[in-house]
């Protein structure tokens, strides 16, 4: 089993570090429990790299891009990575005491409850908008319409890739084209503010638990609630990355308990029909993988940054945009690119109008409510 976990960590490292490659892409290949589980968990630790330094999000980290990018531009990129690694690790620990509660809640969930939760969140988003509420509603409606069309009226292979990369990734990369051509020098000396990380990680873990119960209630949506508790970028990032990890872990426990598939790895496990180990084994595996992923993340940070700093940052961003467009074409051809560009226009609008980018999550929320 240890060998399988290590293989999973390697695969998770690949999906986590490569911009645009989601863990689901590899998970579809199937396999036994240990590698799939380790791959998914490692991915939640390491996807901080492309999202922070390259502005390339996936479903779980889309909302973290702007604050993370801001910190990168003031030379605090390494701090973002460490916040992500530590809060993800804390999340794995905080998941354990929440499990008994989760085992009570998971079987009670119904689709109607999910809709009520999403409607409440949507209402909440509009009410707490600090910018123009009218524009926020427009962004929600535009992204919602796009989501409805893409999810229910097209047959794309990777609909989420185009939508999330377009809404959250491309606008950030485009904005960064106007900044310095080189990556600012990143500070390496900083201390861990445990007083900040621990409570926000706990909050993020609890929100991740909720998001794993409700379909389409993604980690990003949970993060929008976290934003209400702090305007501090670090607290927000701690919450986002904790949500990301706990959402994955609880999703696996949900699958073990109810058979519901709340993430790509659970779907792959379900399709493979593999034997599910006991709760204790899953917890121990999670602790092992989390520890190794933290060490790995720490070890990777400097070489990763070294590569980035030797490159022309602006050129690299252009290359990344080209790579993302290439992936879009690869996945679904010109039609995928069409979706990506439409989503990018909406994401760009949200950015330029100065409304909360979380409103772009209307792309999932509205289809869920309408359906």
């Amino acid at each position, binding site marked *: 089993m240890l060998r399988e976990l290590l293989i999973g960590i390697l695969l998770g490292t690949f999906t986590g570090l490569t911009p645009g490659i989601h863990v689901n892409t590899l998970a579809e290949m199937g396999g036994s429990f240990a590698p799939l589980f380790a791959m998914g968990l490692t991915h939640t630790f390491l996807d901080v790299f492309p999202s922070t330094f390259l502005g390339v999000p996936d479903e779980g980290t889309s909302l973290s891009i702007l604050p993370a990018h801001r910190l990168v531009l003031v030379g605090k990129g390494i701090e973002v990575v460490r916040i992500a690694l530590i809060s993800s690790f804390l999340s794995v620990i905080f998941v354990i005491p929440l499990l008994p509660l989760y085992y009570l809640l998971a079987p009670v969930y119904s689709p109607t409850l999910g809709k009520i939760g999403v409607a409440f969140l949507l209402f909440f988003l509009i009410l707490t908008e600090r910018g123009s509420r009218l524009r926020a509603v427009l962004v929600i409606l535009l992204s919602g319409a796009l989501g409805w*069309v893409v999810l229910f009226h097209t047959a794309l292979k990777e609909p989420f890739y185009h939508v999330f990369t377009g809404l959250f990734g491309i606008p950030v990369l485009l904005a960064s084209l106007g900044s310095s051509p080189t990556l600012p020098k990143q500070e390496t000396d900083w201390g861990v503010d445990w007083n900040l990380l621990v409570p926000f990680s706990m909050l993020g873990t609890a929100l991740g638990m909720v998001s794993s119960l409700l379909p389409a209630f993604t980690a990003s949506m949970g993060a929008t609630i976290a934003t209400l508790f702090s305007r501090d970028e670090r607290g927000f990032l701690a919450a986002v990355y904790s949500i990301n990890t706990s959402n994955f872990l609880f999703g696996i426990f949900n699958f073990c308990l109810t058979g519901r598939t709340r993430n790509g790895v659970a779907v792959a496990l379900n*399709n493979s029909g593999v034997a599910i180990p006991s709760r204790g084994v899953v917890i121990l595996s999670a602790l092992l993988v989390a520890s190794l992923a933290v060490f790995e993340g720490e070890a990777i940070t400097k070489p990763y940054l070294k590569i980035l700093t030797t490159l022309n940052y602006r050129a690299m961003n252009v290359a990344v945009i080209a790579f993302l467009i290439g992936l879009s074409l690869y996945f679904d051809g010109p039609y995928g690119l069409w979706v990506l560009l439409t989503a990018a226009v*909406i994401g760009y609008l949200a950015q330029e109008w100065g409304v909360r980018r979380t409103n772009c999550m209307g792309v999932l929320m509205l289809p869920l409510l309408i359906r």
Partner: protein
Amino acid sequence: MNADKKLYTVLAVVALLSTAGLMISGGPETSSKSFIGVCVRAEKSYSILFNSTHTLLVPKPLEVGVVYTVVGSIKGTKNGLKIRGRYSVSPSSLRPVWLEELDGAYWFREYRYYVLTPEWVELGKPLGVQKGSFVEVLGVKYGSKFYPVEVLRAESPSRTLRNGMPALVTGTALGTFGAKNRVVLWNGSEKLYVYLPHGHYLKRGLRVEILGRVRVTSRVNVYVDDINDVRKLGYPIAVPINRTSIGTIGEGRCLVLRVMKSGLVVNCTNLKLRGVWARAGDVLDVRALNTGSSLVCLECSVALPREALPNGICSFHEGDFSRVRGRVGWVKRYSNGFGLANVTSGNCWVLLKLPKSLGVEVEEGTVVTAYGVFTTYRGKPAFQVNSGDDVCSGNC
């Protein structure tokens, strides 16, 4: 600033038009396939279609037992076919060749539905025909259940008794066997052994129509799964008691001739009367059911106690039942225990036989009353009683 506003407005319109364009164009050309299958499972968020070899997961609630045509991008997984992205699903009037026919009797119990062939084939949904009907159903077998698509033929429940199949039987409850919910039913030609649901019973003599499952062993058993399958038709019209046949009710007035462990011997029928207590000589008003081997009282009562019978000592007629009363003139007891007592009343007398088995002693000079039958003893008028209870001394 105004230029920015215009740009953003244009961008918003472009995004909207682009989204509309996406919808109208319908997305990339995919290898669109069609799948025709019967819905075998429908949940709030998904349904499963089955075409006798493959399953297709459709992410919307459909109706179980309906044939659907699905067109879209269908992908094979280890857990069956799944549909991705845009698709269309519509009910179909097609009846694919892989649909199977199933013949048998429709049955249900405890919210489960079956066709008895006579094997129990569980159905995925109810048929909407009368319970017990003989049906011909078109559908598909999936897992342990048969999912009916169409009922081709449905006939009323049969009255023929076939092993393992339901039947509609009509008859009179003769009594119980073993337990209160086990009823012997006479259907006019044979006895049926009916097993009612626990806690239910039928009153003796009641005519019923029962829809039950027949199991033929050395006898015909009928199992009733639901008490609602028992229709009470009332009691049959009573006939004179000497004209009853099995399953009919007789009425009349009868004199008890003899009391036996197996029942009362009465003067109105050859069958013994059971279910009532009386003494030899009592006159009964009887309403009883003929069960074949005996008459069983439904309503029996003593109309005239034997004490009210006239003294028949002067009306000797051999073989007649009578009450005799008189004074004991003499008593003679033989060495074998047999005794004789001369009972005299006025100018009439009779020899009262007193076998040892009666255990009765009478004394000279006392007044005795006896209930029995006139007979003779060595050519002389005699009187014979059947038990010690039928002889008493004194004013009785």
